[in-house]
């Protein structure tokens, strides 16, 4: 069977990459290739930067409300194409169809939030800063921005940045993950229908060469990245060298603390979703479950009973709770962590290694897995696994669980389940991660709040979406004015 070859979208046109090399894109539920994506080149990036640079002058002069109108039209078009986008997403990424629909919803919410540009991009003024002198700050767009996106949220993550960059008057180049390029390909078909001015928004497929070309290109003013922490750090450093603005979001090792007074029955669905939603491939996924005090045995029993009921399958099946992992290589990596956990002496309560899904024997599945009695120094408790593997680290009290959170290499998110307001306050006050859930298992800020962690989970200062994102995509030009 001949696989379709994906194209780039540059200067308002669909075009072939300059490369002769391609990657296979897989349906992870079937373990079969479904498309080819070009391993793009620096020449592809150069063409996109040229188009985006030429489009910038006209686009920045377009009134903000007119720019917002493109987004209003985009929102309507996304609503019309909602189910199709979600199905493409699940087909190439694997997540359950409801999760894909939820992701598309989150993507659209960013478009909706960005349409508030006429309020959110406003500058500020102050009269009489000295005798007859006034001062005001304009927010001006900067130029061409790039985005390097991950595989776990192929629809949503680029849209934490793209609509804000565009509505602020910048132009944009997106490089989707080469593992899941079809979703943005479908989304860019919608963008094509909307008819943005040529060059305002561009799509370049590829991997390492495209990333480095974006980082090194002098025509690019800033980069938004989401992915692993080592890559996030590299991108942050490269942007420092090349003088670019950067927001670089990395990995996580999120801890979910369960206090002795937690309502386990009420908590269980969101606990399961925290650890097993998207097969654990979220930067907000729970990874360590930390019972505090004498609730541990009861929590382990109830949580493992609930985990056994999780239905694993093709995400396109409406009954599926958990789909496959992204690739065979990643499945092997996750299985490797399970084997390492056994070797390090953790107690395997539920083993997802040998799962078989009827009709999808070649899919990249790992079933729900639970380790109990994990110690903080084990790999299970210190490295990002990014799979459906729960490490239970039993802790004695608040001090111990806070120490556990703050001693990880990451500081993305942390959650607490408790009936005590005092315990919740102490936890959220003392822990380092900057996305906190209280009786919530996935502490995901919506589009109107900033998304991003601290420590090695985030390099840069301005996070994704929220109100602050307009600072990232604009320069505040201050004018001090006096008339004689």
């Amino acid at each position, binding site marked *: 069977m001949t696989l379709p070859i994906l194209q780039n979208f540059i200067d308002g046109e669909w075009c072939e990459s300059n490369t002769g090399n391609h990657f296979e894109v897989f349906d992870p539920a079937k373990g079969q290739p479904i498309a080819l994506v070009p391993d793009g080149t620096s020449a592809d990036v150069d063409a996109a930067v040229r188009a985006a640079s030429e489009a910038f002058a006209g686009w920045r002069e377009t009134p903000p409300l007119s720019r917002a109108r493109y987004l209003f039209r985009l929102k309507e078009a996304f*609503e019309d194409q*909602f*189910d199709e986008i979600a199905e493409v997403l699940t087909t190439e990424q694997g997540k359950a*169809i*409801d*999760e*894909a*629909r*939820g*992701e598309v*919803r*989150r993507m659209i919410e960013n478009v909706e939030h960005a349409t508030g540009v006429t309020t959110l991009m406003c500058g500020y003024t102050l009269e009489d800063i000295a005798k007859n002198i006034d001062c005001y700050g304009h927010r001006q767009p900067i130029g061409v921005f790039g985005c390097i996106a991950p595989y776990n949220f192929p629809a949503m993550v680029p849209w934490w940045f793209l609509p804000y960059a565009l509505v602020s008057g910048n132009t944009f180049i997106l490089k989707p993950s080469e593992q899941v390029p079809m979703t943005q390909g479908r989304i860019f078909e919608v963008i094509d229908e909307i008819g943005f001015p040529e060059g305002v928004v561009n799509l370049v497929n590829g991997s390492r060469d495209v990333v480095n070309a974006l980082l090194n290109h002098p025509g690019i003013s800033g980069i938004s990245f989401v992915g692993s922490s080592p890559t996030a750090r590299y991108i942050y450093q490269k942007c420092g060298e090349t003088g670019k603005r950067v927001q670089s979001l990395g990995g996580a090792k999120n801890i979910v603390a369960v206090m002795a007074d937690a309502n386990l029955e009420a908590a269980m*669905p*969101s606990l*399961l*979703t925290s650890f097993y*939603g*998207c097969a654990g491939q979220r930067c907000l996924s729970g990874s360590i479950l930390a019972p505090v005090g004498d609730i541990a045995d009861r929590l382990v029993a109830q949580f493992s009973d609930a985990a056994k009921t999780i*239905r694993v399958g093709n995400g396109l099946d*409406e*009954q599926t*709770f958990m789909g496959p992992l992204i690739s065979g290589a990643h499945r092997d990596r996750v299985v490797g962590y399970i084997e390492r956990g056994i070797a390090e002496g953790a107690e395997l309560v539920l083993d997802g290694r040998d799962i078989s899904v009827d009709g999808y024997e070649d899919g990249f599945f790992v079933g729900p897995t639970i380790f109990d009695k994990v110690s903080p120094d084990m790999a299970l408790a210190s490295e990002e696994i990014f799979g459906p593997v729960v490490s239970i680290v039993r802790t004695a009290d608040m001090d111990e669980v806070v120490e556990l959170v703050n001693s990880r290499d990451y500081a993305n998110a942390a959650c607490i389940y408790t009936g005590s307001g005092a315990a919740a306050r102490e936890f959220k006050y003392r822990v380092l991660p900057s996305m906190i859930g209280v009786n919530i*298992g*996935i502490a*995901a800020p919506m589009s109107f709040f900033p998304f991003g962690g601290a420590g090695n989970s985030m390099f840069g200062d301005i996070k994704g979406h929220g109100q602050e994102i307009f600072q990232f995509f604009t320069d505040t030009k201050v004018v001090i004015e006096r008339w004689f």
Partner: protein
Amino acid sequence: MELTNFGAILSYADTIEQQDGAFYEWAAAHGSAALADFCTKSVAETKKFRSTVQRVKREQVTEMILEFIDDFESSGYDFAHNREIDHDEGVLREHLAAMEGRAVSYYTDAAAKLTGLPEVARELKRLATRHEKRRAALARLAP
């Protein structure tokens, strides 16, 4: 089919409206003038119901599953649309009323299963009410 999550519940609601709309179209061509008029209006109304279901499915979904749904299966609400009863309008009317009753039951029960999503539960209850009104209107059509 087990209806274990938000998407499955709303998809089945969409199926109900699609099936019932098609049956009203058929019934419009097989009843008296009064019944035909009622059925034609119901076809248009059903399109709106379906549009509501699809909008709720798009707008109220989250990527986080907030609650699990047990003991809810579509088999309890399956309805055999009988297209061989056009010779007896009374039977056809009763059949339509039963069809509306299925929708009322489904939306009422689905709303009770989705209490964690109050906006969704409200819309489903509203749809149950609309179908109940239609069932009452059918009863008023009886000679």
